[in-house]
């Protein structure tokens, strides 16, 4: 097991050499991920691991990809998507133009889910979906629109549970063990790297979706990111978090009101 001291050294290297600041990530999870990568890549000593990190730019891409958690699903938590369908999209539809930010979008499953919701609500043509992540590798995958065929059964069930009425397979074409989602869903997506730790607000949005990203941050960084979101949300727009995340203890809490049972808040001040 890598000691806490060595973790500190590795985090320092990453920050000083590459500008990635993981010091405010929740340490237990981060330590577990670094240990996992260390044994996965069969390093023989911490020194070997550190010098690889310091000297091999290509390895950093892998390191970031493996250290950050990129597990995601389409229509995960169907009740959440149901609330988006029934409570949020009808309100967003009254705007002439809808800007949505998926912060920490990983491989994009939630962005495609959202595009499907918007299309079914007849709103996709006037929407823009900004999808950002710290990790260029996952953005490439998201941009490709190609997902494993083996996941489609689960996604289709999630989709139906969320209130979807179409045949889910009508949204993609299958090819061997992968499926490619229809290009019209992608047309309104803009993919870009963005680091929630160090990058600032870049637009004003009607809905920000950031689910199961903040659990990897410590409280101090969570607070900074909440402020970043607050700066990026117009009045009466929405913020959606993961099912175990909350605005409850944050400094911006008083400006927001939870819409219903799901972790969706509306900015009221």
């Amino acid at each position: 097991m890598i000691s806490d001291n060595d973790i500190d050294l590795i985090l320092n290297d990453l920050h000083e050499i590459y500008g990635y600041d993981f010091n405010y990530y929740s340490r237990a999870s981060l330590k577990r991920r670094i240990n996992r990568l260390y044994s996965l890549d069969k390093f023989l000593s911490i020194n070997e691991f550190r010098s690889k990190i310091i000297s091999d730019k290509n390895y950093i891409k892998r390191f970031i990809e493996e250290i950050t958690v990129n597990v995601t699903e389409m229509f995960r938590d169907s009740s959440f998507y149901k609330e988006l369908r029934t409570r949020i999209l009808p309100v967003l539809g009254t705007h002439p133009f809808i800007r949505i930010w998926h912060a920490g979008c990983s491989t994009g499953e939630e962005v495609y889910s959202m595009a499907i919701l918007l299309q079914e609500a007849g709103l996709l043509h006037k929407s823009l979906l900004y999808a950002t992540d710290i990790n260029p590798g996952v953005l490439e995958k998201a941009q490709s629109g190609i997902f494993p065929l083996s996941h489609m059964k689960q996604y289709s069930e999630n989709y139906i549970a969320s209130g979807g009425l179409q045949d889910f397979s009508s949204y993609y074409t299958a090819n061997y063990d992968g499926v490619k989602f229809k290009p019209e869903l992608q047309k309104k997506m803009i993919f870009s790297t963005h680091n929630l730790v160090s990058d600032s607000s870049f637009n004003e949005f009607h809905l920000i979706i950031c689910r199961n990203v903040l659990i990897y941050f410590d409280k101090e960084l969570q607070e900074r990111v909440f402020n970043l979101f607050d700066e990026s949300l117009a009045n009466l727009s929405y913020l959606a978090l993961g099912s175990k995340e909350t605005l409850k203890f944050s400094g911006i809490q008083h400006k927001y009101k939870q819409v219903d049972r799901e972790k969706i808040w509306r900015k009221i001040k």
Partner: protein
Amino acid sequence: MNYSCKILAIGGSAGSLEVLLKVLPHLKEEISFSIIIVLHRKNSSDSALSDLFSTRTKIPVYEVEDKQSIVPGNIYIAPADYHLLIEKNISFSLDFSEKVNYSRPSIDVTFESAADVFNTDLICLLLSGANMDGSNGLKVAKENGAVTLVQDPETADSKIMPSIAIKNNEIDHILTPDQIVTFINSINV
């Protein structure tokens, strides 16, 4: 011999819910440590499990929220579909990374994380189950000085999980459900 700890971590899979429902009503209402429970269960984001436990004990039961502080005297339940980790500042972190032993929450993940923070102030108890989870967690806990307990496989609905743990590790005590009650009630006494 009585044991002391700050955390009693309990892991279980198939057949473990029945054991806990039997054990909980017999526990003292005031405990000077915290109990963390990691159970394999179907994905459901409702809090049915903590509600169910609350009907069997007066000890306060919480389904863990991200960054929640660990306070002595409470029972904390790992939420469905998240790994449960423990931070050095004695609070919880949730993690939605890959399943471990086909499980999320994984017992190994919580036991290992608790061992890293609590060392000798930890007691780990592994219950019935048809899976390999928990065994490696017990190993790490033992290496860090924790006390390790396993439900007697003869009393378990599914013997696989406790049997594997006993085969692969040096276990301090192998206990029947009745003995589990007696053991827990003697902690920190």
